[in-house]
């Protein structure tokens, strides 16, 4: 495989004028974005703005209708099956709903991150090489869950499960981590811990992270750079340092009429409930 030597400053991710639609609805419309190595990018925007779609374009789980995607020097749309698999092995993906197998232990779920480097199907912790097991435990330790290694995942709390998922991603030795609303189903304390873990990994290992987030405060506190999508278009792209919560909130509040109506309905519902 032709590994392109990534020079410092070379973008690990480059989207050029990307468009994508499903069943006639446009989800992404002319989005361009460069992410350099080691940067933590928070991807914000209202529900349905295209955040999840954008992340899935990056690792080739969706393919763009127009424009090009370059991930770690590869174009997922032009990759063969095996090349795409090799690319995905280099890109970590963290899901909102964790994507863990609940009946299996934390350790086995982490070990699954190494599947791309193994040839045969695996079932059971002992079917993985010892060296991988040691590394998996180290990564569990890194997310603070080494003592839970043999606990069934469906008995862990939400925050712990998401950290197991992060550890699984780490076992891939990713060069880029994509996180799709990783904290949307977690309570505030667990959210902060998961994001802190991701941030620490990004800083310590120099890995770029693109993380879609709903919570404005968390985005500003964690990210190096904030990107906002609305209606499939990129409407804001600034360093987090100079950005205020008010300015970012405008992205949500000046949302299109449909979204505004939805917001109003939510507010009414809230008032009723309260």
């Amino acid at each position, binding site marked *: 495989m032709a590994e392109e030597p990534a020079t410092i400053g070379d973008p690990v991710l480059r989207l050029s004028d990307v468009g994508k639609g499903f069943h006639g609805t446009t989800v992404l419309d002319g989005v361009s974005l460069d992410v350099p190595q080691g940067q933590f990018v928070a991807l914000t925007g209202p*529900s349905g703005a295209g955040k999840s779609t954008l992340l899935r374009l990056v*690792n080739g*789980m969706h393919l763009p209708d127009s424009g090009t995607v370059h991930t770690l020097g590869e174009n997922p749309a032009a990759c063969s099956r095996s090349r795409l*698999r*090799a*690319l*995905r*092995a*280099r*890109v970590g*993906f963290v*899901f909102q*709903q*964790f*994507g*863990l*197998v*609940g*009946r*299996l*232990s934390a*350790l*086995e779920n982490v070990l*699954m*991150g190494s*599947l*791309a480097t193994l040839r*045969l*199907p*695996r*079932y059971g*912790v*002992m079917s993985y090489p*010892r060296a991988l*097991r*040691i590394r998996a*435990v*180290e990564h569990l*330790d*890194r*997310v*603070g*869950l*080494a003592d839970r*290694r*043999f606990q069934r995942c469906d008995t862990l*709390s939400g*925050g712990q499960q998401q950290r197991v*998922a992060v550890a*699984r991603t780490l076992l*891939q030795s990713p060069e880029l981590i994509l996180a799709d609303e990783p904290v949307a189903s977690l309570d505030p*304390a667990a959210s902060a*811990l998961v994001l*802190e*873990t991701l941030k*620490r990994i990004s800083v*310590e290992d120099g890995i770029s992270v693109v993380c879609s987030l709903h919570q404005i405060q968390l985005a500003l506190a964690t990210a190096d750079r904030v990107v906002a999508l609305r209606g499939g278009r990129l409407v804001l792209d600034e360093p987090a340092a100079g950005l205020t919560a008010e300015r970012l909130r405008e992205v949500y509040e000046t949302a299109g009429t449909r979204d505004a109506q*939805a917001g109003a*309905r*939510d507010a009414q519902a809230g008032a009723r409930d309260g």
Partner: protein
Amino acid sequence: MVDTTPVARAPAAADPGPLRPPWSARALIATGLLVAAVAVTWLTFWWIGLSPASLAAGLDDTARLLRRMWPPDLPGAGDVAGMVAETLLIAVAGTGLAALASVPLAFTAARTHRGPRWLRPAARVAVVLTRAVPTLAFAILFVRIFGLGPPAGALAVAVHSVGMIAKLLADVVEEADPVPAEAARACGAGEVQVAVSTVLPRVFPALTGIVLHRLDINIRASAVLGVVGAGGIGVALQTALGSLNYHRAAGIICVIVVLVLLLELLSVAVRRRTIRHLVRHGTIRRRAVRRRSRAGRSAGDPTGTAALPAGRAPHDVGWDRGRVLRVAGAVATGMVFLVSLWSLNPDPARLSGAWPNLRSVLTGMWPPAFSGHLLMAVLESLLMALGAAAVGAACGLVLALLTAVTTTPWRPLSAVVRVLLVVVRGVPDLVYALLFVAALGLGPFAGFLALWISSTALAAKFFADSLEQLDPLPHEALTSVGARRWQAFAAGIWPQFVPSFTGNGLFVADLALRESVVLGIAGAGGVGYLMQESIATLRYDTTAAIVIAIAVVVYAIETLARVARRHLL
């Protein structure tokens, strides 16, 4: 649970701690079951002398028989209609009788029963015994008591169904919220009143579902009751095979298959409607529904918690469309049931003639006469069933992987296999057994092949259904990790699938065991032949011993399956 473990980068630890997971009861049971399945399969192969050569010869003989059956010779339309109608009426009458009898039985057998102490164990014994003895076994007995014809068949269907309906209903009764019953008791209601007014209304939808499901099973069973002379379309099949008229036999098998397929379509449609009804009324929440509501959080409309419709007096229940339909449906169901009972033509003279028969059968049953010969036959049934179920589960797994939308390599193949499986399941086991006996001669080999085919088709359906219900997210996550197709399956899908694989596999074994007991009636090995013979020669003490042995074995396997399933989940 708040986790306060500090998040700190691990120094490259010298000792990573244990890397081998401790043995769990779950892993032990799973391994034990696998070893047992392999051992039983091997033993079965040895017992029936199965080898590649015998299998090839058997297939050869079967192909020759199928050639002799072609082209099928259909009886006239009037005859077909009459036979089908009789089959359906037997099933409806039997199921209806069973439904009526099972309600009090279920309330008595439920843990919540408050009546006399001794009643509950008695009810449970009745449930277990009637469930364990197959319809056909009852049919043989009832033909002896009531003479040839549909009444014996309907009674056999009824007696066997009572146990199953009562058991499932008892589970629902036990789960019902106890507070309304408490409240009714506090008002001074008697126990029967409490059951009828607070528990029955809440279990009624479940009862409807169970009875419909049982009706579905019973129509299939009624199609072969005629083989022992208990009426329905099976009589014609038996006549045709007995007179070596294979073309006619093929024609009748075609009618049975079409009947069962139509039934399948109907039951799928009914089930879909029921589920929609339950979802709408919030009785069950399907994952799909939850997911949709999560996606469009703000799009949901506040469902009208409808107050009284305008113009209806508060004391008047009123007649809206739903109520009219429900009442009309109930009346129509009742009418169909009465017509079916009427059509059985319960002749009083015959019933009084049955009384001495019944007495001689019951007195002849005591004491049960066990013998080594009999136990060997039971063992043969057991081996046939378990071996066929194990091989069938393995074959069914492959077919299920081809069929399930989540795992199929190619969609059109999935559709083809699915249709094929429905057709294969459409033929009753006993018909396969009759065919294999006609092709290969008497013996357990024919029975094994029949059970293998039916177990494979059944297992494939169960497995495919549960594969499609698994959480797709781990598979997606592993695909994003860069795992190969097989790796993503082994790590993301298989572990989720293990409990339902084991549970459904054991269930298939359970069903195969019940079937294997009756296949002997067609001469396909096992204890069924002895049973038929003992009744024909009036050795009721042997019959009683066989019934007891069957009940014990079936109950033991069922208990084993339940225990294993509970520990694996």
